[in-house]
């Protein structure tokens, strides 16, 4: 095909944005249709906050962070983002198996919108989870000291974490041969969170595990959120978080788009 003139390309960028928005609206309507999928970001975070605080609160000494809840809240935020992301795995897997995917494929739309629509809805869902988690935290004694700029940074980092996890979740949704299989595979996203500084200080771990946990992106993100919430300087954690998660976002998006095209070509007969 011949190269498109610049004006058409600008128009297409606007249309791609419109495609993303239409597909996001579709996901929002799915939430309205099945409000149960919000349990992940409403009831569940409350239960996690309460359980983690009462269960581990007495046993785990966190050193300089004050109370355990102040230490563990950033970890719980990442867990909330991860549970919100699992919904994307299920939505993408269900889409790939439904007849409606054939229509999306025969439309002159941006095909990546099939995935980004769910991801955008995921960002909104996890923002709801963020608010609920913070409120539940306050109820059990969480006292962050961040100012307005600090909170803005917390929300931004939290959304970046959600974006990365959500794209990984979409990737898993594309790999699953059925919704059930995809849902099982999605556990892969949850596990790394526990091998990080999210729930316990890395200092208590054996040295080999400390090397793994200290360098993985979840630890960087949790440490950044913890520093921001408690008004401490995030130091290198912030830049490492941005680059590591940014890398995951770019890689997962590229891979997901390629996988979608591949399944497009060799799809069900």
């Amino acid at each position: 095909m011949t190269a498109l003139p610049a004006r058409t390309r600008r128009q297409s960028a606007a249309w791609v944005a419109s495609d993303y928005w239409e597909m996001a609206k579709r996901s929002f309507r799915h939430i309205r249709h099945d409000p149960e999928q919000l349990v992940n970001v409403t009831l569940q975070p409350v239960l996690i906050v309460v359980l983690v605080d009462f269960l581990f609160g007495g046993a785990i000494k966190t050193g300089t962070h004050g109370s355990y809840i102040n230490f563990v809240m950033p970890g719980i935020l990442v867990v909330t983002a991860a549970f919100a992301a699992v919904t994307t795995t299920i939505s993408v897997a269900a889409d790939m198996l439904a007849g409606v995917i054939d229509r999306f494929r025969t439309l002159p739309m941006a095909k990546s919108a099939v995935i980004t629509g769910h991801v955008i809805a995921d960002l909104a869902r996890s923002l709801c989870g963020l608010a609920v988690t913070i409120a539940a935290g306050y109820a059990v004694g969480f006292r962050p000291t961040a100012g307005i700029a600090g909170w803005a940074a917390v929300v931004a980092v939290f959304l970046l974490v959600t974006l990365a996890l959500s794209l990984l979740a979409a990737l898993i949704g594309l790999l699953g041969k059925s919704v059930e299989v995809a849902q099982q595979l999605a556990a892969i996203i949850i596990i790394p969170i526990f091998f990080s500084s999210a729930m316990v200080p890395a200092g208590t771990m054996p040295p080999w595990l400390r090397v793994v946990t200290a360098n993985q992106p979840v630890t960087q993100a949790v440490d950044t959120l913890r520093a921001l919430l408690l008004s401490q300087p995030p130091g290198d954690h912030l830049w490492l978080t941005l680059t590591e998660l940014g890398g995951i976002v770019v890689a997962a998006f590229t891979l997901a788009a390629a996988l979608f095209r591949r399944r497009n070509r060799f799809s069900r007969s």
Partner: protein
Amino acid sequence: MTCIDAIATVGLTKRYGKTAALCDVSFQASTGTVTALLGPNGAGKTTMVRILSTLLRPDEGTARVGGYDVAREPERVRACIGLTGQSLSVDDKLSGLDNLAMFGRLHRLPWPVVRERSARLLDIFDLGGAGRMAVKVYSGGMRRKLDLAVSLMAEPSILFLDEPTSGLDPASRHALWDIIRGLVAHGTTVLLTTQQLDEADALAGSVVFIDAGRVVATGTPSELKARAGQAWFDLIAATDADVIRLTAVLGGLAVVADEAQRLVRVAVQGSGLAGMQELTAIIGAAVRAGACIERFGLHEPDLDDVYFQLTGHARAAVAAGQAA
């Protein structure tokens, strides 16, 4: 852009592993006509539709839809086609109106056009009252209609319908046929797949008959029917003795098609007045021989006969048509 053939394939071949779903298929569909892809289950009809609608790539051969090669310029093909697949291809968690609006926008139509067309299509398809309800609560017929309405949002010049009326009751089926006829009258090209021969007969200007991935016959429904041979007259005798009397008096013309049913079949050569004379002569001979006939019926070759002839399946013994 005008071109005579809205759809043209040359030597189309598609394999799944070692089995060939399509083998060297060539056919054309003229602009503004209905072409029926007819064939038994597994003949390759859906594979053909999926290739033509850019969902599958052919292994060999070329297909042009609306003048564009489906493998080289799929985006241009997508801009001029609509597809109603075998399985429901709308979002059943959304309302009918939301589906129309979403797909209209994804077709990149401006909002005013989307609003006007959604309302008009709901009206045409008699879905106005259900527009704001989730598709999940629609009946099978309503879903089919909405599916077709969504396919029409961008006013495609070429429409693919994969078994559009399977699972519909007769009323919905005829309603859908009327809609399809209306579209074609306005210049849309329709390619439909069906196993229902009366559907091809009712709608299609030309029929492409495929079996086991190969084209086994093409032509208008009447051309194909002419191939299936002549008309015949079926007589059901009251007793076995009447069967013997009938065959005796009719001689070489009559064949006992089914002994258990006492079905005697007589070939009819003539048409019009000559045909009527033949029929009265047969009845007259039976009366003279004292052979009692319980029922009789005239059987014209239909696409069923073509189907059974071409697929090589034996046609089940057909009882005489209308009761005498």
